[in-house]
């Protein structure tokens, strides 16, 4: 018994000594052998433990950085919210600079200070006064167009009446000069009515299409000619029978007016050719495109009618009958002939009945119906 215990103790000591010697040997290994050994263990049976430790440390880093990251996210969100307004302001300032470069001289850039009242968008305070050259009845403009007019002038600031003011009036016209009228605020008391413009007193013979640009006419001596006022939305029904009234979408929204320009009186006499010309040209080009599109559609309809008629002629000829037209279908023109064509009456009345409205229109326009009716079978001649 005692021998067994001594034997076990000796074995324990031998194992202990062996482990200690191995540990010391591992400790004494040179770096060139130590690193590969450690790397080999990490990459083999210790790989799951290493992965666990890596994930835990990553989780701890995430926890530690959560507040900082949240602060960064908050800052980014705040900046993103500001970015929209900054872009808008940047765009406005860029337009102001562009307008200034086109005006070249005779204007006073200023800031528009809005009142605090709810829906008090009829007047603004301008940060330039008589010392800067502002005088009463000086026009106030924005890159988009008309804003208002100065009605009170102090040495360092001035007071302007916006186009939304009930007393505001401006003589207006279409860019081509075919329609004239008086523009004023559309006062209906509704939520959005105050931000629309009425163009009153347009002669009844002058019609304006929706989307047409309306500019100042230059009559009256306050406003120069050619400043955009708005675009036509629709014609309003009024009790006046001798003139038309149109509803305009304003070129400038008064609530968005922050940076404006005041035109000096000496600048008004020099004209504003080319300042807002682009807008007018774009509008006229748009109108021309619309008209061209209508003409192209009409021509296409005529061509299609002619082609249908040619097909019907061919069918009638193949059936041994008399074709609808005088000419052979192979020689049928691609478009409707301009001169009236004398036609022989068709034999097949059913084929005639199948002709569509376009074909009938074309035939009527070519005065064919008058010639073909006497040849209809059974018809009195």
């Amino acid at each position, binding site marked *: 018994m005692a021998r067994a215990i001594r034997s*076990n103790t000796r*074995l324990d000591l031998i194992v*202990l000594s062996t*482990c*200690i010697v191995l540990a*010391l040997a591992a*400790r004494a*290994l040179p770096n060139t052998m130590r690193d590969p050994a450690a790397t080999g263990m990490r990459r083999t049976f210790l790989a799951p433990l290493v992965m666990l*430790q890596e994930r835990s440390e990553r989780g701890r880093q995430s926890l530690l950085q959560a507040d900082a990251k949240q602060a960064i996210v908050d800052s980014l969100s705040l900046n993103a919210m500001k970015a929209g307004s900054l872009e808008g302001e940047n765009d406005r300032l860029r337009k102001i600079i562009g307008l200034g470069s086109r005006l070249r001289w005779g204007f006073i850039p200023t800031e528009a200070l809005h009142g605090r009242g709810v829906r008090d968008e009829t007047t603004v305070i301008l940060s330039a006064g008589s010392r800067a050259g502002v005088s009463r009845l000086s026009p106030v403009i924005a890159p988009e167009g008309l804003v208002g007019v100065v009605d009170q002038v102090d040495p360092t600031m001035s007071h302007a009446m916006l186009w939304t003011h009930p007393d505001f009036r401006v003589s207006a016209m279409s860019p081509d000069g075919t329609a004239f009228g008086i523009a004023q605020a559309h006062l209906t008391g509704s939520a959005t009515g105050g931000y629309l413009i009425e163009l009153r007193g347009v002669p009844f013979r002058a019609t304006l299409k929706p989307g047409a640009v309306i500019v100042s006419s230059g009559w009256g001596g306050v406003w120069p000619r050619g400043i955009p006022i708005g675009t036509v939305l629709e014609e309003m029904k009024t009790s006046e029978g001798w003139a038309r009234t149109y509803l305009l979408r304003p070129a400038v929204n008064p609530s968005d007016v922050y940076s404006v320009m005041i035109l000096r009186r000496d600048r008004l006499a020099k004209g504003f050719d080319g300042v807002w010309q682009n807008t007018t040209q774009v509008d006229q080009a748009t109108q021309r495109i619309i008209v061209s599109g209508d003409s192209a559609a009409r021509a296409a309809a005529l061509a299609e009618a002619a082609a249908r008629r040619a097909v019907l002629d061919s069918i009638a000829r193949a059936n041994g009958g008399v074709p609808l037209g005088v000419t052979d279908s192979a020689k049928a023109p691609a478009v409707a002939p301009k001169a009236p064509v004398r036609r022989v009456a068709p034999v097949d009345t059913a084929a005639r009945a199948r002709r569509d409205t376009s074909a009938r229109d074309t035939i009527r326009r070519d005065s064919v119906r008058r010639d073909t009716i006497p040849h209809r079978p059974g018809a009195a001649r």
Partner: protein
Amino acid sequence: MNVGGAIRAIISFLIFVVLHYTLRPLLGWRAPMDFLVLALLLAAVRVRPSTAAVIGFVLGLISDSLAPDALGAGALAMTVVGFGASYLKAVFFADNLVLNAFFFFLGKWVFDILYFIGEQRLHGFELLQQLLLWSPLSAAVTAAVGVLLLFIMRPLLEPTPT
């Protein structure tokens, strides 16, 4: 120890090892608990000193492989601690939480002493600060966590009544 007890002991051992590589880096304390030492001590009181020495050597190599500059230091310290714990199990092996806490504290502190001396990375004041301040703190935390885990895992660690 019967087969069931051995399996439960192995499971407990693996749980401690896994905790060492998950909970410890997640907490990241300056005086961290050492679940490997706890696993070694819990295993050592159940096996012969030679087996405990081998277990300690393997655990030490595992911990050293993640710090190659100290390869062998952890193995040496774990071997000695495992052998000592198994050799002294008659003294400390009692169903007393306070005694077990002291057992854990002592095992961890001895391990740190052997490890940092064998590592030869710290010298002078830094070594003294480590051995007399941070190591006892770490040993205390390890003891507290060990007692807590013993309490939680008591059904798993208690010997099966025969």
